[in-house]
């Protein structure tokens, strides 16, 4: 029975990783930009939610709703005025700039909020669980997983059912031809990063409810997100979810055998997938 529990906990953990990864996947899929500040942006989001909770007395979920448009604006501005200038044939400038941003965010947060470890105020919900057969599944991990699925479904609808999604796909395939059709890649990119930061806000909410965060915790959260995106296949959103689940399950199964192998097992699963499918599980037709 422990094995069923182990796999169930792993799948739920995978939801968290997929949530961390979805924004990254979106940005990478559309503009081939590897955002090394993604983890720090999640922490920025968590602090923004914390600020709204303490200043306005809002419950965390409502505060996250309020934070979303603010984060969208941050992402839009960041892309429009900074990151767009770094995009080009050379892949190094965006890497360097986002790496620099990561340090800037960490130290700005340290200056503003001190190094204290923080957490969003929690209530009975945090430790609540539901018994499904012999399993005790936490309500919070279930919500996290459900949110991850909802985000992926939502993004897929956006990509394949709206004109904005069409513009996203067109720009992603060929920005030059897309701009001949009247699409401005620069503003498409800005909108995409804005949307990515809305997803970041959702990830931040669960990060903050789940455990402590402090200004320096971002980069540690980034690595699993990266692995999830790459396992899933660049640009595939469902792949990102599956990638997150693979890492989550590998970790919990590894830990069940020996807790010393928990993190290692996740990384090994990542390598194993790359060995068999170097371009990920669901790569897009041609990149």
């Amino acid at each position, binding site marked *: 029975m*422990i094995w069923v*529990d*182990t796999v169930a*906990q*792993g799948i739920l*953990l995978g939801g*968290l*990783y997929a949530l961390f990864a979805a924004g990254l996947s979106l940005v990478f899929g559309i503009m081939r930009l590897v955002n090394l500040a993604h983890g720090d942006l999640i922490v920025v989001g968590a602090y923004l939610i914390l600020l709204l909770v303490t200043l306005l007395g809002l419950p965390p979920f409502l505060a996250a709703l309020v934070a979303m448009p603010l984060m969208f604006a941050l992402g839009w501005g960041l892309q429009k005025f900074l990151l767009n200038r770094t995009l080009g044939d050379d892949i190094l400038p965006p890497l360097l700039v986002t790496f620099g941003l990561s340090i800037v965010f960490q*130290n700005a947060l*340290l200056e503003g909020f*001190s*190094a*204290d*470890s*923080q*957490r969003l*105020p*929690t*209530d009975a919900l*945090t*430790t*609540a*669980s539901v018994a499904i057969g012999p399993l*005790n*599944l*936490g*309500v*919070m*991990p279930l919500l996290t997983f459900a949110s991850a699925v909802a985000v992926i479904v939502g993004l897929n609808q956006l990509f394949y059912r709206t004109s904005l999604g069409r513009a996203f796909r067109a720009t992603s395939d060929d920005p030059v031809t897309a701009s001949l059709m009247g699409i401005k890649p620069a503003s498409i990119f800005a909108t995409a990063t804005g949307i990515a930061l809305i997803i970041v806000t959702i990830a931040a909410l669960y990060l903050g409810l*789940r*455990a*402590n*965060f*402090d200004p*320096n*915790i971002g980069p*540690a959260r980034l690595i*699993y997100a990266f692995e999830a995106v790459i396992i899933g296949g660049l640009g595939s959103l469902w792949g990102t979810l599956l990638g997150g689940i693979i890492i*989550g399950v590998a*970790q*919990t199964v590894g*830990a*069940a055998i*020996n*807790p*010393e192998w*928990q*993190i*290692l097992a996740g990384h090994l699963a990542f390598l194993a997938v790359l060995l068999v499918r170097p371009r990920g599980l669901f790569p897009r037709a041609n990149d």
Partner: protein
Amino acid sequence: MITRRSLLKGSAATGLTVAAGGLAAPAIAQDAKIRLGYVSPQSGPLAAFSEADQFIIDGFLGSDAGANFEVIVKDSQSNPNRAAEVAKELILDDEIDMMLVSSTPETTNPVATTCEAEEIPVISTVAPWQPWFIGQQGDPGTWEPFDYSFHFFWGLEDVISVFTAMWNQLDTNKQVGALFPNDGDGNAWGDPTVGFPPVLDAQGYALTDTGRYQNLTDDFSAQINAFKAASTEIVTGVPIPPDFTTFWTQAKQQGFTPKAASIGKAILFPQAVEALGDQGHNLSSEVWWSPNHPFNSSLSGQSAGELAQAYSAATGRQWTQPIGFVHALFEMAADVMGRTGDTGDADAVAEAIAASQVESIVGRIAFDGAGLPPFAARNVAKTPLVGGQWRLKDSGGYDLVIVDNSDHPDVPTGGTMEPIL
């Protein structure tokens, strides 16, 4: 490593010193202030340890004894390499007379090693003495006392003694589950010869140690399942704060509540306990210093309680344990330099440190080897360690109540150990 550049830089600096010293030394020496270097992690993941630094240093410089000193503060950025680098800067560029360093082996060790090599006296604190001593010396065959490095704090044997004394107050089945991460602390606590296992064995406790997990693990269901299978009633360990929150939340979700949870490191700071919401009630931890400790500052005469209150009044923040120890570090500096004839003579200063008998705000600091193995006796002074429990206040927030003082009866208790419900 000596590179061409650092050699040139170094010799240029010493060359200048000699030149300037030869010409100007006699004239300045009369009213020159004693230069203290201070290294601590003011930014980065360890920054919570250093939050009271500025408050303590301002207080020190404002005191009568402090007027004779100049304190040059450097930030280690929670990075051991950076700590060694700034220590070098302090020694070569700022020409300090003595080094003070605090908070975690990651800061104290590189700085002490640098000072020992450069023959500058150094006093360090806020790191258990084993990682400080053994961490710098390596292979036991070559252990020898330091000439210029001195350290005051408690050791692993004190934590073990405090934790088991707290558990002995409760009626449990003596099944202990361990959360030892794969880092310096976790490996030391879980060490089969000097860590928890032999002592627990001797006292009749059974230990469920699932192995060294990596820090920032997101899922602890494997440990929780193992603890449940062994019907563990006590949990101990030395996780980092986010990991303990993850573990504790997950344990509650999966219906695992031990009677006692005695945790090092993770619940040191009240902010970290508050992060647990109302789930932190009756968690227990080692206590190195509290406002109720019956000690007074040798600098200002303030009691522990008055110092904590002054800190809260000045910053609007709750007291934390490092405050007392950083203050004691500057007490040591004032006391040592007050007893030294020539404060620029490293050997005289080191001798004065070794002869210290300071009644400080963290208790008596004397390098007399009490409670220490012979190899560490010259360089380490032990301060009292007691056990405490975090109690939820009616008004919200937590109070740290001392519940065990069996090793140091002079520190008053505020209650007795209560089981977690």
